[in-house]
């Protein structure tokens, strides 16, 4: 078990190091004077000098990288060109909004995917199963931003049920906040629901074919009890891993969804940063997103080993 943990941790650290190298190289590939890139077009000579000194831009590249990395590790990713606010503080301010959106979308996705997926597996090759598979394929193919626009068209413009935009903070007006988050969460949750539903169905089909399910059935357990007490518990384990791998898609999807529904989360932040050529901010957001992805998947791997004792046992056997 400990071996497994250490190994996963080591791989994650290496991945993080390579990520930082990619981001560093990317910023250096922006044409023009790097000091100008990092200080902004309206910085004066003093401002440029300050940036040059801070990042040691006259040193050789490897030295520059190490200096930049040591600042980044301490949570210093420079400051936004536009607002002069530290990048980390800007991003941290935006995270709760996107986090709320992601959690709600996840809720939507799980609420659709698990019941539909389980039922499809239980009633395999039935009309229900085919209909659910067709819907999942549509969910995978529909462009989320178009779905968002169509929802606005129907729910806000035609029916006037929900406001299309105008974010209110959760703790200021919980009801108003939820009213404005329902549609973005639906849009972001749809694609995820489709992926998870397919996974749930496949995992459940595999589990339902297992020996212990046959045993449970043959000892006369009611079909419902077999599914709920035996199959679901084991069938949902692989779904957790997929969830971890989908966090990237969720973060990417948040960029588009926040743009359509004018949610001031960090997806909107990165688009604004790109438009205003706020390179330090873009760099910070990209670096933080990738690191978050590595972190989430490390956690998923660890929880997986807790959920699936076989991994723990294999680790223990290796220790002995």
């Amino acid at each position, binding site marked *: 078990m400990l071996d497994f943990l250490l190994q996963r941790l080591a791989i994650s650290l290496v991945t993080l190091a390579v990520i930082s190298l990619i981001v560093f190289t*990317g910023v250096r590939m922006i044409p023009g004077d790097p000091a100008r890139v990092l200080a902004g077009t309206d910085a004066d000579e003093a401002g440029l000098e300050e940036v040059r000194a801070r990042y040691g831009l006259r040193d050789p590249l490897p030295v520059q990288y190490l200096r930049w990395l040591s600042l980044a590790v301490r949570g210093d990713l420079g400051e936004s060109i536009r607002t002069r606010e530290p990048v980390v503080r800007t991003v941290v301010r935006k995270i709760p909004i996107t986090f709320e959106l992601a959690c709600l979308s996840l809720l939507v996705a799980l609420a659709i995917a698990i019941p539909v997926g389980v039922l499809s597996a239980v009633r395999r090759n039935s009309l229900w199963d085919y209909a659910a598979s067709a819907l999942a394929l549509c969910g995978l193919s529909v462009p989320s931003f*178009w779905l968002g*626009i*169509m929802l606005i068209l129907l729910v806000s413009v035609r029916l006037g049920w929900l406001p299309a935009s105008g974010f209110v903070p959760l703790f200021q007006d919980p009801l108003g906040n939820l009213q404005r988050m329902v549609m973005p969460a639906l849009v972001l949750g749809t694609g995820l629901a489709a992926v998870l539903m397919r996974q749930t169905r496949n995992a459940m089909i595999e589990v339902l074919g297992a020996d212990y399910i046959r045993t449970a059935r043959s000892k006369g357990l009611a079909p419902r009890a077999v599914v709920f007490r035996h199959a679901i518990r084991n069938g949902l384990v692989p779904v957790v891993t997929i969830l971890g791998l989908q966090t990237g898609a969720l*973060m990417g999807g948040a*960029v*588009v969804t926040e743009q359509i529904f004018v949610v001031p989360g960090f997806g909107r932040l990165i688009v604004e940063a790109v438009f205003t050529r706020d390179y330090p901010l873009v760099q910070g957001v*990209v670096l933080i*997103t990738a690191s978050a992805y590595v972190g989430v998947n490390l956690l998923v791997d660890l929880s997986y080993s807790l959920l699936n004792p076989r991994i723990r046992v294999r680790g223990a056997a290796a220790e002995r």
Partner: protein
Amino acid sequence: MSQPAARGHAEVSAGKSTATAVSIEPGRGGPWVRAWRRARRRPPAAVGALVVLVFATLAVGAPWVAPGDPLQGNWSQVRKAPSAAHPLGTDDLGRDVLARVIWGSRISMQAGVFAVLLAMAVGVPLGLIAGFYRGTLDQLLMRLTDAWLAFPFLILAIGLVTILGPSLTNVTVAIGVAATPTFIRLTRGLVLSTREEDYVQGARALGAGDLRLMGRHVLPNVASALLVQATVQIPGAILGEAILSFLGLGVQPPQPSWGTMLNAAQQFLESAPWMAWWPGLAIFALTLSFNLAGDGLRDLLDPRDY
């Protein structure tokens, strides 16, 4: 000597895996007849392939098929609802939406296909080398792809467009670069198992060089899986282009990309909703068809799964 050995194996494996299919359909009829028989057994895949073909035809034949100029505005025809003269209506500058949707298919196809070709051109050789030689280079490449894959697809593409600047070419490059690690991973995995196969070992024993082994024996045997992956990635790349253009980071107006059309449509949802319907439906139809066709292709090439 090594060549017939490999071909022999390919035939054996094909014969084994399609044994049931062969017994149902005798080898009578030309390739078209056989294709038709196969298509009839999977209507969704056939429809998908047909729709993809239609879009491809539109993309290639846009100058001849499209009714009028996609860039030419007409101030007397601003935001007109669909009519006989403009079957899909006109946009905020009085341009024909149908003409723009048809020209848009060219941009979408271009971005989707070329991005995936780029990803394959880089990813397949790297994966082949990593899987074939293993060792330190393989480890280095795998850590690189780990890190590469940690960037959410869209965020990496946005970051790359920031560096390169927005344009169709740059969006295509950005999406291609973002899709590359998938091909490195997949190719490497396939090569790792294929290189241990008897026919590869046999060819090696007969003195075939590394290049010959990779090109003649390993690559042809992993090609079908790569082809399936490509059909899965193309709709993703098409969506990527549409999203980046929608955000204003891709194809720039007045070029008719489905994404930029949807971006413009957002401001006129109340007065001209048709501006939002058609480009979105086109993206939906094309990605759905690609997915259907890809599923069919996978069944066709890998009958074990079926």
